[in-house]
């Protein structure tokens, strides 16, 4: 590997951007493909799929065999609301390798006793969120039920292109949220990206079951083709 390729690779990783390296293991030729440029690569389809799955491996092409290494940032989960569901969702997400942060300005909820092994910030979203580096490898869940807390957080998440944005609340609650966020300048397309009612429809009742349905939906959003989400929202 050329040193400048290695340098670019490390710079992309440090910036939390996905990147692939295509290596012909027979003759040593190599190229680096940034996620943003993947669509114009001769192996676009293969590289995009591997980036989505976060899976490195050998590929047979028309000419030869190449090894594709993918480097995808580890996903983050930001949960707004240190509520009962979050107590189940946070450890579940940690088990799946997510870096989890919970934000809730209500100190009675955001206590270390309730969340012994999770980073909990007892701050308002406008203070807590900017330093967190919310990005497209972040899943974002708003579940305080309080528009004063959830709404500004959702605006932040939509502006940062999170791969998953979910908000707790019934269809009726979500309808009112629609009016408020539209008034705040959110487009129809962006509003449609919010998963609400949150979670896969598995008949979840208990907080832990709801956490399972949310986590399932997050995994689906991360791993399946974006086209499918777009269709589901249409």
């Amino acid at each position, binding site marked *: *590997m*050329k*040193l400048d390729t290695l340098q670019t690779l*490390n710079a992309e*990783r440090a910036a939390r951007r996905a990147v692939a390296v295509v290596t012909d293991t027979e003759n*040593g030729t190599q190229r680096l493909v940034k996620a943003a440029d993947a669509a114009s690569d001769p192996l676009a389809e293969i590289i995009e799929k591997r980036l989505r799955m976060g899976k490195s491996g050998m590929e047979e092409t028309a000419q030869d065999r190449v090894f594709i290494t993918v480097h995808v940032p580890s996903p983050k989960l930001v949960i707004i609301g240190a509520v009962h569901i979050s107590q189940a969702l946070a450890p579940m997400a940690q088990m799946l390798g997510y870096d989890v942060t919970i934000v809730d300005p209500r100190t009675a909820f955001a206590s270390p006793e309730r969340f012994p092994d999770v980073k909990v910030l007892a701050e308002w979203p406008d203070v807590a969120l900017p330093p967190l580096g919310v990005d497209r490898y972040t899943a974002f869940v708003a579940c305080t039920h309080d528009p004063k807390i959830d709404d500004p957080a959702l605006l932040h998440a939509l502006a940062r292109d999170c791969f998953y944005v979910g908000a707790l609340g019934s269809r009726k609650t979500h309808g009112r949220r629609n009016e408020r966020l539209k008034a705040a300048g959110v487009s129809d397309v962006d509003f449609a990206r919010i998963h609400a009612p949150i979670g896969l429809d598995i008949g979840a009742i208990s907080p832990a079951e709801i956490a399972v349905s949310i986590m399932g939906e997050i995994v689906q959003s991360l791993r399946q083709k974006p086209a499918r989400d777009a269709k589901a929202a249409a």
Partner: protein
Amino acid sequence: MLGRDEDILKAAEDWSKAGRGVAIATVVETWGSAPRPVGSNLVIDSDGNFLGSVSGGCVEGAVVTEAIDVIESGKPKTLEFGVADETAWQVGLSCGGTIRVYVEKVN
């Protein structure tokens, strides 16, 4: 694991910039039970210092030796390790799997 891998490739960059001869070994294929997944890295310098892993410690010694060759020759190499057999020089994986490791020089 991702965090550690990041540090490994950063170390490769730092070592190389410091003027050390460096090779990167990457697991490119696995069959059966393999201790480290495809994409795992071992970084080696010409003195035999290394970081990371391509197996559970079973074949690292052999990879380091080969990597020092690759640093000298500049030519990449693909190594294959399977279950240990009677051939005295072959290093084996106790877990029963087979792995293929690509070793390349940083230059």
